[in-house]
């Protein structure tokens, strides 16, 4: 019961259209994505150092490398998921009325999905050398 309460289970019972699934799954996936993002974020910081002031050919070569392309794909995928999951909790805590809260949560989900699609397209193009 403790876990469900921590995961916003009580909040979710107040008929929020965007979040009427259980809070435990959301809580757990937020933690799983956080854990996975620790090494991925360290990779992003490392890549950022490499790419600071890099010429186009240099940057395209780094992210075109299969291993780094995979890391970039994993980072953007998990990061955009984690972002929408965090914004959802903030919306549940602070945004009122419920229709506006649901609208903001869904808008964030669509925007994060679009962000991932754009990122994945770019990474795919770089990895395939197109």
């Amino acid at each position, binding site marked *: 019961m403790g876990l469900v309460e921590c995961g916003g289970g009580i909040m979710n019972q*107040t008929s929020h259209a965007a979040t009427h699934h259980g809070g435990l799954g959301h809580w757990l996936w937020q*933690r799983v994505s*956080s*854990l996975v*993002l*620790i090494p991925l*974020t360290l990779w*992003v*910081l490392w890549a*950022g*150092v*490499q790419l*600071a*002031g*890099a010429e*186009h*050919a240099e*940057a*395209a070569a780094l*992210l075109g490398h299969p291993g780094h392309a995979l890391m*970039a794909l994993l980072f*953007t995928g998990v*990061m*955009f998921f984690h*972002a*929408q999951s*965090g*914004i959802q909790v*903030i919306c549940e*805590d602070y945004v009122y009325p419920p229709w506006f809260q649901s609208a903001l949560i869904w808008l*964030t989900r669509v*925007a*994060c999905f679009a*962000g*991932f699609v*754009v*990122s994945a*397209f*770019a*990474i795919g*193009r*770089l990895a395939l050398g197109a």
Partner: protein
Amino acid sequence: MTTVSTNSDPRPISPYLIGPYYRPQLTSMLSIASRLTGVFMTAVLAPVMALWLLALALGPDSYAVMTGLLATWPGQVLVIASLFSLCYHLMNGIRHLIWDTGRMLEIRQIYTSGWIMVVLAFSLALWVWWSAGAGS
């Protein structure tokens, strides 16, 4: 228990952390900062990162436009704020994951880990900034 008195179906509500009701403390400030950095990164860093990747993939011309924008002073402010947000959110996230295992939950430990986290976050951000400058 605080309730909304005008509501026909009164429900308990969270205590207000903003305003004169609650004294600012390291614990609450660090927690709010974690959410603020998360919102900032979702609203600014994540879309800029996606656009940077797109600009890189589309070719040298679009990449030059993107790096040119990031080199302006507002661009540099964005980069520094993003770097600090990322390091802070990472370090406080690790602290939250430790709490989720039921550890380090004594008040003294929470304050100690809070200060350690702040020092580590600043150090990581400065080290990354220095390394990036030294490399370019």
